[in-house]
């Protein structure tokens, strides 16, 4: 549904306005929920109004962006790599309209398109290191939605991180696939089960709605899982070790701020260093997070050291989506 913030729109009649277009229904998608939080926060800070247009498929993405352009807000925020082509087209047609893309960028640079991208692989690498340290069987795996470069960012660095701390670790990745890969938690659970059956005891879950299925599978076998985007530990306390947190809200807020401040056409990359990517375990409040990692301070110490190496540039994590 369109989320008009009535109180804000009343006060900010002549104020700034922002429109957020999502590639999928927001629903329980933590990543998109954070983007909504970000744009709302920005509206509050700039005494403006905001709208959220939710899409479900390429056709509705195009229609929503068109509708946003027609409404001429100050900034149109788009989250997701799905929008790269559409924004390139619209930015050219509407040079006065400011766009902010989060999580992707157009191939060509435009004066009116700003980008914010994440280096998820850095966080996933750290989660992999935790897994490598915690694994009893020496086998860590991942369940991704689909075999795409974007999702491989959640599996390949996981394996690399584990191998970094325990060189002999065996790694493996499964993809949910099927007719409805983003929603099919039963399938995600079966995929996790095939890993668990082989003795894998640490599983990175990047299966969208299927994550819950992965957690269930891990819980039933007494194994451990890793969540994404936000703290997913409360959905399976004792099973979820840690989460690769992606601060979309920060990227949206800061991006809008920059555009309004006149800095446009730039690309900002968020990683461990910028605080755009992190682990729940590395943040304040870890003790009340219900995450397993809270009980493994020794592991966290080693992971923090790794993080510092990455932040300082001493250690470089390969990005599967960059090849």
């Amino acid at each position, binding site marked *: 549904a369109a989320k008009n913030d009535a109180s804000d729109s009343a006060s900010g009649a002549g104020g700034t306005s922002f429109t957020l277009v999502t590639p999928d229904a*927001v*629903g329980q998608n933590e990543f998109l929920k954070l983007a909504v939080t970000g744009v709302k926060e920005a509206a509050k800070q700039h005494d403006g109004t905001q709208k959220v247009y939710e899409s479900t498929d390429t056709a509705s993405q195009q229609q929503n962006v068109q509708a946003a352009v027609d409404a001429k807000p100050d900034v149109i925020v788009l989250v997701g790599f799905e929008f790269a082509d559409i924004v390139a087209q619209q930015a050219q047609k509407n040079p006065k309209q400011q766009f902010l893309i989060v999580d992707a960028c157009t191939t060509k640079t435009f004066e009116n398109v700003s980008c914010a991208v994440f280096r998820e692989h850095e966080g996933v690498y750290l989660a992999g290191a935790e897994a490598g340290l915690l694994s009893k069987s020496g086998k860590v795996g991942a369940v991704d939605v689909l075999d795409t470069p974007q999702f491989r960012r959640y599996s390949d660095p996981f394996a690399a991180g584990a191998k970094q701390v325990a060189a002999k670790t065996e790694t493996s990745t499964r993809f949910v696939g099927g*007719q*409805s890969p983003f*929603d099919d*938690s*039963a399938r995600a659970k079966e995929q996790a089960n095939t890993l668990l*059956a082989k003795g894998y005891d640490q599983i990175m879950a990047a299966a969208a709605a299927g994550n819950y299925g992965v957690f269930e599978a891990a819980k039933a076998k007494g194994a451990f899982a890793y969540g994404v985007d936000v703290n997913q530990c409360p*959905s399976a306390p004792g099973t979820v070790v840690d989460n690769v947190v992606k601060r979309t809200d920060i990227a949206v807020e800061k991006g809008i701020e920059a555009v309004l401040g006149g800095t446009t056409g730039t690309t900002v990359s968020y990683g461990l260093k910028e605080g755009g990517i992190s682990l729940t375990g590395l943040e304040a409040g870890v003790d009340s997070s219900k995450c397993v990692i809270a009980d493994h301070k020794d592991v966290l110490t080693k992971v923090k050291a790794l993080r510092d190496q990455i932040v300082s540039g001493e250690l470089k994590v390969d990005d599967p989506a960059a090849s």
Partner: protein
Amino acid sequence: MFLDSDLLMSALRALTPILLAALGGALCERAGVFNIGLEGMMLLGCFTSVATSWFTGSPWLGVLAAALAAAAYSLILAVGAVTLRGDAVVLGIAMNLLAVGLTSFLLRTVFGVQGTFDDPSLAGLPLVGGFTPLAYLSWIAVAVAAVLLSRHVWGLRLRGVGEAPDAAATLGVRPAAYQYGVILLSGVLCGLAGAQLALGNVTLFTENMTAGRGWIAVVAVMLGRAAPLGVLFAALLFGLAEAAGFRLQGLGLPQQATDAAPYVVTLGALFLTTARRRRRPSGARS
């Protein structure tokens, strides 16, 4: 290492919801009603079971509610196709469409969330020997349905109704009553299938979580020639192919290939089973 007990367990888990739905479809088929609304009824069962289990704390009430809700939903097909003589295929497709919209709508209004409803305190079905009681029920249902159809008075009359409703009517059997009966029964079975999926296979509700399983059930009905045992084997074949596909992914086969595997295997099985019929001279005018 490939054909181990885990593979079988995995196949049997994938099998249960499909089998329950397909049994319902098979009974309808035997009564001359082509039911392709299995997917929608199953999805409604998923939602109802989760909602009921959440609010009552009892997965069993969830199962019961799912069966009742899906049966009530199946009345659309019964009234539309049997009483009003509408087209069953169109109605079935509409029911599938309606269920997706309706459950998403209810998810928003009842739980105030979109996409997925999941909570650690949502009570799922217990496991007995690795399977939910519904899984055992589905196997019993196959046996019961087989006996009912082949030996029971009800089954004989049902088969007659499916083959020649006017002939049954002249003998005082009301085809509509039997057709209503099996459609409602298929609703109950699909409701159970949905409960199994949402409270057994996993413990949560996701929009469109049936993800095509109802269609596979329709295919299983055809492949199994609407006979309970045939349907069992068809669903098992599909479950095995899917579970094996998961394994093959582990061996490095691309995900797209393993996605396609169960359908290709099913099609192959159809070729083989129809090959026998093809060789028989055609029954000419009938």
